[in-house]
């Protein structure tokens, strides 16, 4: 209780509140402009938060991303272009509702379900994370090794794109992660005599490259026309008949929140995947699956809650194990390290106040979403006219200044640009960048725990299965790897008999 009060004091400081408000508006803008993703905006925010205290710094990212995920529904409804990938699942439903003359209620539903999903996900985060941390205090390097490996495997299997391409991207990330002094013997690897690479490829410039530069290049290469959209002028339009619809689909709101949170907790799967899965579940169990995609509210309610609850869920593994739940938390983990809030069970003991303050910011952001979201909906029409081509140089400027300011070296800018161009080429060829980023974030975690465990075990591989939890995690990981293979073999064996 004392920690909560101290945490509340941290959050209620005028400076923190100002940062939260500013980032909320920034997030709404990012979400509402089609094609600018919440992950990119997070990467851009990092240099700005660099000199802030931990709570406003993480609070800035939390608030911005929550707002952006909701606001991406706005262009989805008004011009049928999802603001971020998280709204892609139900874009047709939203737009059809607009064509039927109900854009107000469509967006009203979005803002309310987003807030409910977000609050639910945060509640789970606040309750589950400390409990999980208590358990994981008994984790040694053996458990962490399996956990990290399991996280990487799950990320590859759940991500977008084909399995082979995901694995390729992951291996690339792992390779980049191995640059620098190796963690156990201090031997410099792949540094080619560059002092700047002794502590590895600078992480935040690389992330800015991964997420911001491809969007800049795309904005210039595929010039898109700006669109004009119908505007909503009255607040009452948003809430007409809202109570009735919400009550009718109350079960869907709950289901969306639960599914979203669970998908968020899974490493590598974030808001966009939560939204798709939730939409699919909703359609599968609906009494009217034929109405989906034609302006029906049911799927909207499910996925609207799911994408925002996933955002909070992703922080559970990120805070407790340092394993990112999605690509935004992959960046947040870097920020946490910079701020001395090293993720892991110890952070709940060493920095209980700051951790609770971050949870409170989550709550605050999701509650602020309703009034600020309404404001954003009312102001949507002019925002949608902003040209992405005009924003591109501005984003690039931020990317360069941001990379430089963190490392104070021009190497950082070079790294950012090289990684950025590479990421663009990857995405143009259907290779997802998210696994590469996870590889970069978790490469050292996997390696360090592997080497540490081997030293402890005097190189005996069986020791990886001797502790009960480690053994369990190991079996699950191996099962995850080999089940598809065994299934394929089984089918091949069965086929001739069926044919005969």
């Amino acid at each position: 209780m004392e920690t909560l009060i101290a945490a509340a004091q941290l959050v209620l400081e005028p400076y923190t509140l100002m940062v939260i408000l500013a980032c909320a508006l920034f997030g709404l803008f990012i979400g509402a402009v089609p094609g600018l993703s919440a992950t990119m905006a997070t990467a851009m925010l990092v240099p700005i938060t660099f000199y802030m205290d931990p709570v406003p710094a993480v609070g800035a990212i939390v608030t911005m991303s929550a707002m952006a995920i909701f606001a991406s529904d706005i262009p989805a409804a008004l011009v049928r272009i999802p603001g971020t990938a998280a709204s892609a699942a139900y874009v047709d439903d939203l737009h059809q509702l607009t064509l039927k003359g109900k854009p107000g209620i469509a967006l009203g539903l979005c803002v309310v379900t987003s807030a409910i999903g977000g609050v639910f996900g945060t509640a789970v985060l606040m309750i589950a994370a400390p409990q999980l941390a208590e358990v994981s205090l008994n984790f040694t390097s053996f458990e962490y090794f399996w956990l990290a490996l399991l996280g990487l495997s799950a990320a590859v299997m759940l991500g977008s794109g084909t399995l082979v391409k995901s694995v390729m991207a992951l291996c690339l990330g792992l390779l980049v992660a191995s640059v620098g002094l190796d963690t156990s013997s201090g031997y410099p690897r792949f540094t080619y005599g560059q002092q700047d690479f002794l502590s590895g490829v600078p992480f935040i410039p690389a992330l800015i490259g991964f997420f911001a530069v491809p969007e800049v290049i795309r904005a210039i290469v595929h010039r898109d026309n700006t669109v004009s959209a119908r505007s909503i002028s009255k607040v009452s339009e948003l809430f007409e008949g809202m109570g009735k619809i919400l009550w009718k689909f109350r079960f869907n709101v709950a289901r969306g929140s639960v599914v979203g949170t669970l998908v968020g907790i899974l490493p590598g799967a974030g808001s966009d995947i939560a939204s798709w899965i939730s939409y699919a579940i909703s359609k599968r169990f609906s009494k009217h699956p034929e109405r989906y995609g034609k302006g029906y509210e049911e799927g909207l309610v499910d996925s609207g809650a799911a994408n925002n609850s996933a955002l909070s869920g992703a922080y559970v593994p990120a805070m407790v194990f340092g394993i990112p739940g999605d690509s935004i938390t992959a960046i947040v983990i870097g920020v946490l390290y910079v701020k001395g809030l090293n993720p892991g069970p110890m952070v709940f003991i060493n920095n209980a106040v700051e951790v609770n303050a971050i949870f409170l910011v989550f709550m605050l952001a999701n509650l602020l979403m309703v009034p600020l979201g309404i404001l954003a909906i009312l102001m949507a029409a002019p925002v949608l006219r902003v040209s992405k081509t005009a924003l591109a140089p501005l984003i690039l400027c931020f990317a360069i200044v941001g990379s430089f300011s963190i490392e104070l070296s021009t190497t950082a800018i070079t790294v950012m640009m090289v990684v950025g161009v590479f990421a663009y080429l990857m995405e143009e060829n259907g290779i997802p960048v998210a696994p590469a980023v996870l590889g970069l974030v978790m490469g050292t975690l996997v390696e360090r725990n592997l080497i540490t465990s081997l030293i402890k075990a005097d190189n005996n591989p069986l020791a990886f299965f001797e502790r009960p939890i480690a053994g369990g995690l190991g079996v699950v990981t191996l099962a995850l790897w080999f089940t598809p293979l065994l299934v394929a073999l089984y089918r091949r064996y069965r086929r001739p008999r069926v044919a005969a």
Partner: protein
Amino acid sequence: MQISKILGAGFVAGAMVFAAGAATAQDYPSKPITMIVPWGAGGGTDATARIIATLLEGELGVPVPVENRTGGSGVVGHSAIANAAPDGYTIGIATLEIGGMHYQGLTELDYTAFTPIGLYNSDPAAIFVRSDSAYEDVNALIEAVEASADREFKASGSAQGGVNHLAVAGMLNALEIPVQRVAWVPSEGAAPGLQDLAAGGVDFVAASLPEARALMDAGRIKPLAIFATERADAAPDLVTFEEATGVAFALGSWRGIAAPAGLDPEIARTLADAIGKVVEDPEYTQFMEASGYAMQWTPNEEFEQFMADSDAQMGTTLRAVGLAR
């Protein structure tokens, strides 16, 4: 790069020989003083540097911006301090690692590349075991280690060659137990090592008291002895290693303010006097006490002697562990 460095050094040397020396010392300081921290923002060294910088602004009347120049196990930041112009406008934090990295072949740099201003903190390492461990005191642990097979005991607390590794290796060396008797499990800083100890992954850990405080307060680990010449103010009941075993051994991390070599002695004195006042400021003492950092102030020549001793000790220990190149 090399040429500009030589030119720069030549220019500064020239300026000191001709006239300018006295004038700069009198006007000093007339512009912002950059304080370089070789470790990341948010860590212990950064936190202590920032509070000193803030209070130093008040003493000297010019801004003192803090710059984190991280990387290469501290090589990057220490080099940045040593290679700056010795005009008093670039100072920085030197830490224990400066004595070790040249033995490890990471850099040529050692303490002679700096003008010592003053030592403001040193936190001796202590030895920790799990609270439910069978070892009641450090002698019991040592007896068990003596009787054990090679690599049967696992210890952790820092990277290979890090301060806490050297504390354990130095202890074994002082006890005339072969260093390879205990397997060192490298960890990124003390915190993961301590958590591994609490989880039962290793047998004992060396770490400083502030690093271990959270897990000590949570009742999961207990200290057996501290590697210092006298007991710590923060834990007066904890015996020193020498008291317990009769073998003299002290080692721990330290932090001091340093400037590039060749700084005008008058400027060095101005800085030492100003920081001498900063470390008595109640705002500073309260911060250091609250965070659990030990406080001291050892200015100028004494600090140089301290660095020389520390360097020699690092050399002995690193050679014993086989990390010297």
